[in-house]
């Protein structure tokens, strides 16, 4: 990293370990192929096409790479789900529909270092046997789509994509597919339906596991932008070496996206589990705003369960259980799960004591009500109902009973829907109520119990801004 200099004011923090973001904000770096090649670009692809595809998958497995999109599922294992007896074409889709609120990492990769993604994708395609691949880019990234298309054209011309890649017999057609503004397209099977030109209704699993019955009912691997970039570095370092980064079962680096009430929000690539939430806030982000106290943290995108500042958590350290505070939580998959939330997509939202909890929850509920695809009953009906109740809580038009109703609506969604959106939309409500019940009830009025509401009037009277 020593030979890399960065744009003044955008230098990586000393706690960072830049792998994927090595070239982000790098001085003199551009998204062109020439620049990429100067830096050893496509060397890993050249190496990959001389390897057995299975050997690549084995490296990725050995690296312990877990998906960076949200679920944290082991990437190498996912690749092996393609049935060994398969005779249909295999497809690979890069999920660049980055849309979990609080997450903003993929844009930078696509804007500033598109070939890194293309190389990672080409290696992954070779490993899984895909000859046709798409990058599903969210509509709100028009420049990313254009830059990627230019990069694809360049790479094809240079023989890194297209027919007979790097002199091998490996062919790969790769295209950019633009979404049109739907969070649900981040869900693998919703994305696949969208790519098939249909409404992005997630499919039921079973039977429609993408690795078996994916795009065009053929085996399909869907990986996040960041995950695919890691593949290149895994090949460069070797799986075992890569696995030394981070912590056991939470290997490698990952990009944390921090927003909300901190001095210096932004993106930070760190070794997984090597920084704590407190270090993220204090060191990486320069602490809270003057005079403010921490109230809550949403650690993995807005669907992750909220953590309360004064909460205590029990974590396993070696063989013993220790009790820690919020600031001591290591930022890795397993620790955040053990604390009752998740690392999710890496989007950390910091909420200080200036925020009204009911307003925060209502903002999140509005998002999910807007983004529910409407396919299955609990989420379709429940997400809007939750928003309507929280609208009233914010507007002071709710009774304490409404908080209980809100919670039970969330309970009636969680675990009962076709896709994980059910959890995504109910976890915020469940966790906010569980941890901030008093704050929420304080915004309600006992005398409104059972009074019918005219929602439009309520909203007209409401000031939802703060």
């Amino acid at each position: 990293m020593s030979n890399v200099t960065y744009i003044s004011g955008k230098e990586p923090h000393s706690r960072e370990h830049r792998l994927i973001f090595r070239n982000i904000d790098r001085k003199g770096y551009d998204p062109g192929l020439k620049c990429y090649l100067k830096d050893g670009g496509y060397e890993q692809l050249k190496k990959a096409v001389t390897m057995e595809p299975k050997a690549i998958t084995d490296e990725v497995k050995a690296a312990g790479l877990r998906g960076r999109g949200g679920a944290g599922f082991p990437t190498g294992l996912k690749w092996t789900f393609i049935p060994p007896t398969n005779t249909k074409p295999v497809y690979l889709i890069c999920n660049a529909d980055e849309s979990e609120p609080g997450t903003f990492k993929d844009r930078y990769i696509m804007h500033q270092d598109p070939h890194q993604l293309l190389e990672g994708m080409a290696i992954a395609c070779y490993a899984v046997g895909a000859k046709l691949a798409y990058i599903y880019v969210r509509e709100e990234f028009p420049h990313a789509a254009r830059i990627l298309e230019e990069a694809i054209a360049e790479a094809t011309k240079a023989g890194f994509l297209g027919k007979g890649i790097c002199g091998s017999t490996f062919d790969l057609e790769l295209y950019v597919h633009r979404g049109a503004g739907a969070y649900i397209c981040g869900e693998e099977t919703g994305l696949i339906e969208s790519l098939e030109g249909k409404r992005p209704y997630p499919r039921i699993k079973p039977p429609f596991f993408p690795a078996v019955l994916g795009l065009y009912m053929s085996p399909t691997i869907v990986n996040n932008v960041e995950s695919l970039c890691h593949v290149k570095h895994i090949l460069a370092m070797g799986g075992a070496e890569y696995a030394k980064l981070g912590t056991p079962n939470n290997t490698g680096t990952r990009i944390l996206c921090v927003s909300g009430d901190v001095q210096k929000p932004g993106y930070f690539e760190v070794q997984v589990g090597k920084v704590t939430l407190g270090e993220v806030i204090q060191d990486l982000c320069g602490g809270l705003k003057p005079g403010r106290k921490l109230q809550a943290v949403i650690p993995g995108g807005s669907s992750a369960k909220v953590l309360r500042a004064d909460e205590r958590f029990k974590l396993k350290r070696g063989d013993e259980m220790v009790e820690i505070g919020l600031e001591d939580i290591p930022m890795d998959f397993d620790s955040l799960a053990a604390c009752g939330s998740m690392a999710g997509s890496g989007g950390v939202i910091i909420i200080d004591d200036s925020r009204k909890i009911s307003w925060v929850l209502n903002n999140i509920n509005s998002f999910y009500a807007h983004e529910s695809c409407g396919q299955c009953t609990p989420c379709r009906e429940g997400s809007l109902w939750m928003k309507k109740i929280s609208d009233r809580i914010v507007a002071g038009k709710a009774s304490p009973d409404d908080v209980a109703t809100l919670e039970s609506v969330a309970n009636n969604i969680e675990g009962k829907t076709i896709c994980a959106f059910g959890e995504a939309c109910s976890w915020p409500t469940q966790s906010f109520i569980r941890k901030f019940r008093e704050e929420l009830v304080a915004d309600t009025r006992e005398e409104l119990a059972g009074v019918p509401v005219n929602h439009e009037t309520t909203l007209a009277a409401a000031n939802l801004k703060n």
Partner: protein
Amino acid sequence: MSLSVPADIEKEIDERITHYPVSRRSAVLPVLHILQRHFRFLSEDAVSWTAAKLGLEPIQVLEVVTFYPGFRQEAPGKVHIRVCRTLSCAMAGSYELLDNLCQAAGIDASRMGHHHPFAVSKDGRFSIEFVECLASCGSAPVCLVEDELHERVSPETAPDLLARYS
């Protein structure tokens, strides 16, 4: 079919369709994007044209058009502005930003609702839409003016932002 698609646009569409060797239907989104870029919004005729182009029933296209907020069914202003509404931006003042932009552009924000996600200024120069997460939470509040992302747009600077597009 009363939609008149210029030859160069149709050529671009035809080329796009080749990106989907397995199924033409997959080209619905790209075809609609190209049409919207050219016509600024997707009329009923654009839907029918797309359906005919791809061998689909018009409803199969309309299902898609109405699902995605990225597609407009009404004409926007000359400059379409999308302000991020979601949490990190809201915390950074995006509601005020929206208000200020509407005020500066002379837009009646009360006309924005579920069936009309954006409102157009009287002079037709601007239209403003409150949208969900634009994935730039670290530089909140943000807005997309046409294809340009503007970061850290403090609500007070709304008139300056509009001035850049006047």
